[in-house]
């Protein structure tokens, strides 16, 4: 596969390391009353769709960016690649 890195252009997927669903960005509030349940769902449950999937790839043999790649799990087609940091900020994550 080829991942079109937002900064570096198309790179072979073998330069990257895969983590999983980009929902891993949405780490729950550890101080919430439901924190244990929230973290269980965050750490263990997955939609695991057959179709479009937003997922985290790390450019390990490259610039060490974490990327959010929107990829179809049925066809492997990639429709969007974003810097994970931008996505995280977009989801309201900060410090």
């Amino acid at each position: 596969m080829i991942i079109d890195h937002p900064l570096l252009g198309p790179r072979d997927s073998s330069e990257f390391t895969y983590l999983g669903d980009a929902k891993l960005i949405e780490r729950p509030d550890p101080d919430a009353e439901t924190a244990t349940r929230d973290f269980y769902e965050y750490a263990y449950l997955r939609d695991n769709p057959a179709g479009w999937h937003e997922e985290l790839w790390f450019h390990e043999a490259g610039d060490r960016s974490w990327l959010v790649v929107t990829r179809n799990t049925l066809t492997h087609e990639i429709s969007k690649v974003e810097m994970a940091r931008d996505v995280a900020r977009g989801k309201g994550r900060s410090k």
Partner: protein
Amino acid sequence: MRYSGFQVIKQALSGHKGWTPAWRDPEPQPHYDIIIIGGGGHGLATAYYLAKEFGGKRIAVLEKGWIGGGNVGRNTTIIRSNYLLDGNEPFYEFSLKLWEGLEQDFNYNAMISQRGILNLIHTDAQRDAFIRRGNAMLLNGADAEMLTTAQIKKRYPYLNTEDARFPIKGGLAQHRGGTVRHDAVAWGYARGADSRGVDIIQNCEVTGFKIENGTVLGVETSRGFIGAGKVGCAVAGSSSRLMSKANMRLPMESHVLQAFVSEGLKPVMAGVVTFGAGHFYCSQSDKGGLVFGGDLDGYNSYAQRGNLPVLEDVCEGGMAIFPAFGRARLLRMWGGVMDMSMDGSPIIDKTHIDGLYFNGGWCYGGFKATPASGFCFAHLLAKDAPHPFATDYRFDRFEKGRMIDEKGVGNQPNLH
């Protein structure tokens, strides 16, 4: 019809006119006591044991395509019980014992061949871990033997010990491990279940569950609604997709695992060998093909095919230990979808919906588990209580912090 050498001769002498279909092709009934979704190895085994061991009546297996078309038809055929952890080893040893009597039990030659499995050791830390594992196997009543490099060389003289980047420091052998003719497992269970009255319904895709007041009443299918007292799901590879129809999110991801077979060769490998410093394992089928594999491609996929990097990685591992295989040719490669669970271990459990039961999350190890998985799932369906060897395969183990993590890599499925 009972199969035997006598029958083969008798039929041959009468023009093979007497052979009957191995299973019927029934129309679905409006209602069953128990419906098993998934006509793969696990689903068919569940139906077989339900009918045979647990007195089940009015059972159907619903298969969206052709039976045995999932991972039981696409795997590297290995059976073994060389597990480490308490939650696993008794279960897999139970499975291996069932394999050992299976052919006589279901009257089908699945070519269960206990020619042994050998895990090569390359570092001292690995040896420590394998000693712990071998001891766990022996303490659970399984077999295990630590082999020296010299003993291994005797069995596999062409193993690269002279010029190895990662020296071979011995190996953990399980002589009762081996291989099975994978398709025949599905067919044997199907035939055995069918002859005990189970309706095996192919080309019948489940499109939804009918659930009222927290109780499952049946399934919607491509061939209409079918009512059921209980519904057991055994659709590894499609688990998340199916269970989402019951609004469940599962602790698993779907990943592609590739497997490879060479052209037919005269026998060179007796048993199964796994390379502990790379991603490669290999055996040789009774037809002569080297059957080999390695790591997952590593990304979520339902595409049932993989890519070049893993093919290369696997062949590199192969050439690292077996440089004599360089001139053997890869004939075919294929990819199967694995239910990769969050701790690398399976789930056989009730769901929060009454009457709806789940069996899945087998990662890349489901084939060897087929008999025990079927038996334990049948037990759960029949008695509403987990079989003693499957008590830890619960959904709630993640929430409760009781993971069964053989590889010790945590909640990242592609590392298991």
